[in-house]
């Protein structure tokens, strides 16, 4: 009996390490996109999606390692909150930037929202 539980414990530890590494790499790639992409709308694509999923992965790895202890439940609460609020914050800041007068970058090919607002 104890041999099986030790085995499951080891498997969960290895899986949580893998999920933690994937989450860290995704967060790093999101921040790399912040420096490489040309304008604010494209930068939001990386921080609102990749950064949030990376943070959720780190919190999920804490839950997998600690089980349903208080630290694991609080970690998954933080992860779910991030996943719920990231699209709302991205939508608000995009709309505010467009109405504030931040233009699209010079590679852009179409802007139907600006045309609809001029009419």
């Amino acid at each position: 009996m104890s041999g099986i539980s030790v085995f499951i414990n080891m498997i969960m530890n290895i899986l949580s390490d893998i999920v933690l590494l994937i989450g860290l790499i995704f967060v790093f790639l999101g921040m790399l996109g912040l420096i490489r992409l040309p304008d604010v709308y494209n930068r939001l694509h990386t921080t609102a999606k990749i950064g949030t999923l990376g943070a959720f992965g780190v919190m999920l790895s804490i839950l997998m390692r600690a089980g349903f202890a208080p630290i694991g439940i609080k970690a998954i609460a933080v992860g779910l909150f991030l996943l719920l609020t990231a699209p709302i914050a991205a939508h608000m800041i995009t709309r505010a930037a467009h109405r504030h007068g931040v233009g699209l970058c010079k590679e852009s090919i179409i802007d139907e929202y600006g045309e609809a607002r001029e009419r």
Partner: protein
Amino acid sequence: MIRYIPLAAIFGIIWCFVHGTFSLVSFIFGLLIGLLAIRPFRFLYRPEMNFRLFSPPNRIVSIIRYFMVLIKEIIKANIAVAKIVTKPKINISPGIIAVPIRCKTDLSITGIANTITLTPGTITVDISDDHSTLYVHCIDASDPAAICASIRDDLEKYVLEAFE
């Protein structure tokens, strides 16, 4: 006051998450705090808003299928954007396009907007005044008709089944 019990139950579950222990004592404590917290803000809850705690069973199956599709799309989105970021030379053609939608209620419009933000390469910017068109920023806008078709066929079907 009895009308606010389902809302206060949601507060109780959130309190269980924040407190870190799932037990009946902490749930009831959170429910009482939730009732106290709802009382000053009860003008925000309209009386005609019928809040159902239990949905019909066929609705629950559609909601579960919607969340499966959402998880699959989130993973696909992250791999797609990570590929763009790690390319040595960034070659993109972004733009904002107008996407017509069929959703009518506020809940389903919120659902489709959040789903679009979490799917590959698209972010919702705004909704038109008559609630019939979403403006979507795409990281690759070279073919607007294909993006409209993919949103209509792949995502909006599940949102309509689940929330309307």
